[in-house]
């Protein structure tokens, strides 16, 4: 599991108190310190400072998304109430699996509300929430922006708004990075590293394909499993570091190229995020 290192804010402490299931068993919430130290040693590009584009600090984007999602839920509560419907904020839940057993099953707080509605009432409820009375039809008549949910998203578009708008450009960026000679060299270096450990694989892809195609139940001493152990402990981290170094120059050029739109978004998002935090805090006081 990834480590999230931001200090707890007030809303987080309150949300923590609302945890719906108690984690039991050792190891469920264990932090992968190796990953975290590897991440901290990664070369950083200017993209790490752009909300929605972060990779090394990708948890920051997820943390912001989490606040924004909760704020949207509270906006939906208000919007639904204005239409005469009861709605309980129900943000997403993180699932952690544990061999030792189920502690408590998640129950959506709105299930009991909708279960009590007649068919006609449910259609009206959906119309208010989604802007369509049949949001569970496979083919939707038309896209609507009239529901409380869509309105909440319009008010708080969120951390990934610009990343979504620049999806084509980021796809092109990925191609540039993978075609960079430095990336190719990093892969060649990995091959030598693995070879020195006694494993002949032409690429990480080849090793991972071998792993994925092993018969189910293959034990830990298979050649591919042993090679993967070496990859994970020695050759892999170096490869990722080298590839990241290659990526940095392209990502910095990307930021430079889109500087105007990025700076504009950063300002807009900072304001929207502050608003989201205010909404959450106001509802949790």
């Amino acid at each position, binding site marked *: *599991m*990834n480590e999230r290192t931001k200090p707890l804010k007030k809303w987080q*402490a309150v*949300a923590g108190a609302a*945890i*719906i*299931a108690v*984690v039991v*068993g050792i190891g469920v919430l264990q932090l*992968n310190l190796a*990953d975290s130290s590897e991440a901290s040693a990664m070369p950083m590009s200017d993209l790490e400072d752009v909300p929605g584009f972060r*990779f090394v600090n*990708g*948890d920051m984007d*997820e943390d912001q*998304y989490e606040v924004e*999602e909760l704020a949207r839920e509270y906006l*939906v509560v208000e919007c639904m109430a204005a239409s005469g419907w009861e709605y309980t904020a129900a*943000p*997403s*839940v*993180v*699932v*952690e*699996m*544990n*061999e030792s057993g*189920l502690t*408590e*099953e*998640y129950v*959506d707080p*709105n*299930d009991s*509300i*909708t279960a009590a509605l007649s068919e006609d009432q449910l259609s009206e409820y959906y119309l208010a*929430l*989604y802007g369509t009375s049949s*949001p*569970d*039809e*496979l*083919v*939707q008549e038309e896209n609507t922006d009239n529901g409380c*949910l869509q309105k909440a*998203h319009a008010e708080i*578009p969120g951390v*990934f708004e610009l990343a*979504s708008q620049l*999806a084509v450009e980021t796809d092109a960026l990925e191609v540039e990075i*993978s075609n960079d000679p430095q990336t190719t060299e990093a892969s060649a270096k990995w091959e030598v590293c693995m070879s020195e450990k006694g494993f002949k694989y032409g690429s990480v*892809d080849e090793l*991972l394909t071998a*792993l*994925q195609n092993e018969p*189910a*139940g293959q034990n*830990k001493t298979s050649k591919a499993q042993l090679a993967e152990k070496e990859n994970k402990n020695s050759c892999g981290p170096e490869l*990722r570091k080298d590839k*990241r170094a290659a990526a940095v120059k392209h990502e910095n050029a990307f930021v430079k190229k889109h500087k105007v739109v990025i700076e504009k978004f950063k300002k807009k998002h900072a304001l929207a995020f502050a608003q989201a935090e205010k909404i959450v805090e106001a509802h949790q006081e």
Partner: protein
Amino acid sequence: MQRVLVVAGVCALTGLFGSTATAADVLYEPAEAWNGKRVYLSPATHNPDKQGCGDYKENAASASIAEAAANSAYADSYYVANPRDRNNLRGLGYRVRIGKGTYQSAVINSNAWNAHAHVPIHTNATTFRCTATTSVGEGTWVMHGATSTQGKALSQKILAELKTRSPGANDKTCVDTVCSIGSLHEISAPNAPSAYIEAEFHTWNKGVAWIREANVKWGYRIAVGIDNYFGKPRG
């Protein structure tokens, strides 16, 4: 801090699905380092649910498949005992959300989260032939939009992992407007490339039996297909 839910296995997890009241997702963090990709899985949430042979219900079965793709290694003692945890989305380094609302909310959430792949998961239906032992038109279909080259590529990669495992002989990728009832919302509306899986037909026994083995035998192959589409990114 986000709400945390601890579940033991797929039987418990299926209790999370089937509601269409709200728009919340279920999240899975990568088991180790994030590989930079976000995958949105959207299992069927029909209302009313679709029935199949025996006591089969599509919503719970689709949720089980999605869970297997996201996290199979932790959901079954066989895979816990045998180190296959790389072969699910969590193990492969993906961030995963599984939608539990409606098809509308799934698309809205997938787009807001800027998912890199959107994968609806359903099971198919035709005339009931519950005692049949030989397939006629049954098999696994993966649908995509007519003009989406990325959706088509994603569909092909996923089908490549399922077609030799699915019992029916009619495995294929196809355009939704050709193979389905029309332009499917979860193919046309997501920003991410969409590959819409119809994992076998629940209208014959062999299909149902296979679908029910997703968590122990083949659900993780969806993860492998997605991983192959992305070129096995590992940070």
